[in-house]
């Protein structure tokens, strides 16, 4: 029972490089989210999606892009990585209005 799977789990980038984080869920959830977690700041919403083909900005969207071409996948892209994007990234999904969030295991990204 996979749930929410994030790849890769760890990545080190140099400033200016690009990369994509993949989130896949097998629960047929409509809503998907990307958060970043930084010490003392909790989880901050980067982007979210309310269904296949839709995306929207969260509270800290700058420097990130997302796509949801298939219902089960939500991709987070960094076009030109910056040291300020060093963080742990979490993907989450949920089914409906009152549903709990199901989280992936997180992806630790370091930008040098």
């Amino acid at each position: 029972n996979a749930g929410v799977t994030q790849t890769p789990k760890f990545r080190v980038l140099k400033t200016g490089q690009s990369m994509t984080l993949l989130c896949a869920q097998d629960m047929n959830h409509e809503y998907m989210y990307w958060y970043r977690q930084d010490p003392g700041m909790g989880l901050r919403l980067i982007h979210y999606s309310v269904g296949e083909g839709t995306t929207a900005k969260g509270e800290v969207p700058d420097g990130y892009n997302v796509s949801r071409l298939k219902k089960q996948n939500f991709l987070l892209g960094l076009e030109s990585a910056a040291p300020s994007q060093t963080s742990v990234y979490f993907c989450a999904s949920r089914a409906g209005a009152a549903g709990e969030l199901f989280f992936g295991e997180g992806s630790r990204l370091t930008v040098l």
Partner: protein
Amino acid sequence: AQTVTQSQPEMSVQEAETVTLSCTYDTSESNYYLFWYKQPPSRQMILVIRQEAYKQQNATENRFSVNFQKAAKSFSLKISDSQLGDTAMYFCAFMAGTYKYIFGTGTRLKVLA
């Protein structure tokens, strides 16, 4: 703007004792949901307990219970008979509308043997 505040960055409790984690929130919504999530050292977040704002009865899940004070906008988590496996970061979260989840900054709980 909706906010969630956890004023206790770190707490510790002796094994088998009871501990209460505080959470306050601010919203103008009348219908919303509140959650406590646990993040153990393994990093994956899991739901501990959920409360619907329209329900007056406090939610309970085994050793975990909440004290929901709607007028005061307070949502504290009580852990009874604390166990070593309860050591984790605990996040309070608020959800209103169709999509938005807002998290507090977390309380790091350490259970001492």
